């Protein structure tokens, strides 16, 4: 008995020493880090995440720097050697070879992510996606139910019918916001919606294709959008509709539907909209097959500046951040094993839509896009409000520019 007690005591002592040494490990890491971020709408949540990290790592302080013109500022600061220690970026913000030049490898951080969530450049891991996003429609469940809509749409025709029911139910509610003025937001109709039905995603497909703007699928989407506008199902004044204003209006219950990624969920909740009233439904096939699909997009990864003075502290923060970012900000974690806490998204996925894991944008697609210098959002804006007679000219103009860019980069792999 004595021996048993002695062994138990010894085991407990060893365990306690081990735990103390673990705690000491965390406290021995020191540093003063600067985290730049573009989510100006998530300041409170990000500061809470930082506060909890600092409690776990008392030797490390993290200063949050929120930037409105984020990608441009960070790009310029990287060039000038003035970049912060930590910065989220996508895997296409910079030319591929520059990632190895500017960022510290993160091979020694043990994280397993879904799909393309691990950002690898020449077999070197440089980052892990902070979240995964599903591109889909987001809707106000209460308004849709009150309008008498019982089943979610699987074609664009059904979507238009549902929007008409909402307009009939309450004309003061905007059935579907276009976010017309924000070009990246209105470009989602092609770059995200149609992307789910195009092989390789919109830009990869487009870099191999001529006359993309007169493609049957693209035109089906655009013409449905025009029909919605003509029937008064979009914003009453398109130029007054943008991402910032319409997010607030959705959260205030003035908008019924939104073409948004699940990333917008956190914004709405942060604006005070109840999580349980937010629903999601997958993109209907524009060609009317009845199939629905969502794109799985990986969010930005948190990169570490190669010139950071505190690499250990930065890596500790990356691990903490990637494991917790989704929970703090109302997103979906890209880390395998982390469950999705948002019921609306689970319901959408259980309804049986296709889940498309989009590959990264190829170098050729990036080159074609740069050569063409076409803002897809501007094209959609133009198509949406042009007179019927102007449409062939608009399509011809954009096709000519795009075809020239495809031809110029045809030799690229």
């Amino acid at each position: 008995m004595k021996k048993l007690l002695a062994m138990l005591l010894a085991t407990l002592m060893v365990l306690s020493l081990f735990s103390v040494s673990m705690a000491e490990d965390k406290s021995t890491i020191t540093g003063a880090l600067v985290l730049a971020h573009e989510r100006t709408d998530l300041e409170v949540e990000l500061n809470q995440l930082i506060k909890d990290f600092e409690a776990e790592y008392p030797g490390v302080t993290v200063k949050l720097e929120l930037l409105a013109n984020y990608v441009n500022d960070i790009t310029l600061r990287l060039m000038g050697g003035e970049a912060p220690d930590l910065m989220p970026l996508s895997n296409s913000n910079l030319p591929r070879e520059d990632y190895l030049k500017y960022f510290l490898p993160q091979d020694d951080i043990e994280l397993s992510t879904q799909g393309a969530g691990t950002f690898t450049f020449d077999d070197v891991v440089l980052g892990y996606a902070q979240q995964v996003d599903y591109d889909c429609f987001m809707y106000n469940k209460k308004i849709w139910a009150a309008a008498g809509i019982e089943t979610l749409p699987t074609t664009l025709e059904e979507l238009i019918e549902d929007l008409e029911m909402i307009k009939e139910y309450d004309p003061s509610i905007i059935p579907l916001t276009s976010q017309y003025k924000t070009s990246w937001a209105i470009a989602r109709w092609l770059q995200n919606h149609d992307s789910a039905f195009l092989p390789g995603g919109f830009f990869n497909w487009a870099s191999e294709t001529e006359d993309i703007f007169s493609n049957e699928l693209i035109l089906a989407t655009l013409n449905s959008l025009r029909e919605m506008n003509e029937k008064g199902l979009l914003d009453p004044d398109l130029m007054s509709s943008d991402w910032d204003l319409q997010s607030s209006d959705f959260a205030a219950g003035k908008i019924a539907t939104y073409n948004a990624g699940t990333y917008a969920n956190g914004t709405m909740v942060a604006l005070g909209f109840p999580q349980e009233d937010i629903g999601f439904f997958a993109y209907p096939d524009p060609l009317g097959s009845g199939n629905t699909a969502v794109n799985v997009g990986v969010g930005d990864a948190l990169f570490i500046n190669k010139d950071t003075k505190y690499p250990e502290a930065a890596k500790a923060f990356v691990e903490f951040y990637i494991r917790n970012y989704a929970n703090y900000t109302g997103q979906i974690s890209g880390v395998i094993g982390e469950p999705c806490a948002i019921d609306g998204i689970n319901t959408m996925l259980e309804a049986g839509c296709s889940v498309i894991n989009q590959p990264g944008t190829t170098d050729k697609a990036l080159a074609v896009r740069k050569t063409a210098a076409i803002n897809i959002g501007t094209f959609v804006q133009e198509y949406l409000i042009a007179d019927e007679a102007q449409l062939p000219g608009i399509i011809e103009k954009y096709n000519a520019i795009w075809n020239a860019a495809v031809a110029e980069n045809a030799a690229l792999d």
Partner: protein
Amino acid sequence: MWPHIPSHSETNEVPFMYSMTSQKIQRTIFILCALIIPVALMVTFTYYPAVKLIYYSFSEWDGLRPNVDWMGLKNWIYLLHNSDVFGALSHSLYYIAGGLVQNALALFLAIILNKKSMPGKHIFRGIIVLPFILNGTAVSYMFRYIYDYTKGPLNIILQFLGIQPVRWLSNPATVNWALAAVALWRYSGYLMVIYLAGLQSIPADYYEAATIDGANSWQSFRYITIPQLTDVIKLQMFLNISGAVNVFDLPFVITSGGPMGSSMTLAMRANELAFDFNNYGLASTYGVFCTAVIIVIYCLQDKILYGKEKKL
């Protein structure tokens, strides 16, 4: 023994020459010293970037790589064959037109507020200059709200008066006028200050002599004020043209260049090319093109408005 150095009292000639040479050298050294810093600053921050901009306009550069690829005339050929460039340039005409009204208004206000008998003129000057002091982005956001079709106070007032609300920013026919009106509101005070300075430099004797000769107010204005303000007007016109061609903040914040690109300006397109498409080479071409356009319009204007006077 020390060598003999003639004193000033021994000869007048040598010290005078010595003194003149010394003064010249001192003067030259002083001028060089006084110039070296401003010239260095000007070369570093004005001429060097300008020359670089011209160099980049013939190249391809993504803004990140250290190497810049020479492209010859490719960017210029693209620019001159792109109809959107001239479309964007045509949008600047609205601001130039607005600028002419702005100048007339500024001169009118300056004349009124230059009168000694005008009560409270300092307060009015402050109020009129205030819009120029306000932050440009804040002004743009304010007018975005004012022009809002559904919630904007402008349309609410129109509806109150029984007039149909206007789609100020959604209609390609009205959007540039609406934006030019914001520029007019914002810069009139600034132009007024320049006109005031010009008016205050005209000697009062001219007006007194004209009054004695029986000239009325209009004649004084036409034959004294306008000729005396010629240089000021030329400056204002230059500011008007360069401001109109380079306008960026107002359309960027208020309309993002829409609808249908109908308020897109050259500066906005250059910004889009540089920062959305990492094409700094082509963006530089747009920048140089803007400068060339300003110079051409200014020279034309100078020739049309003042060519005859020069001949006289």
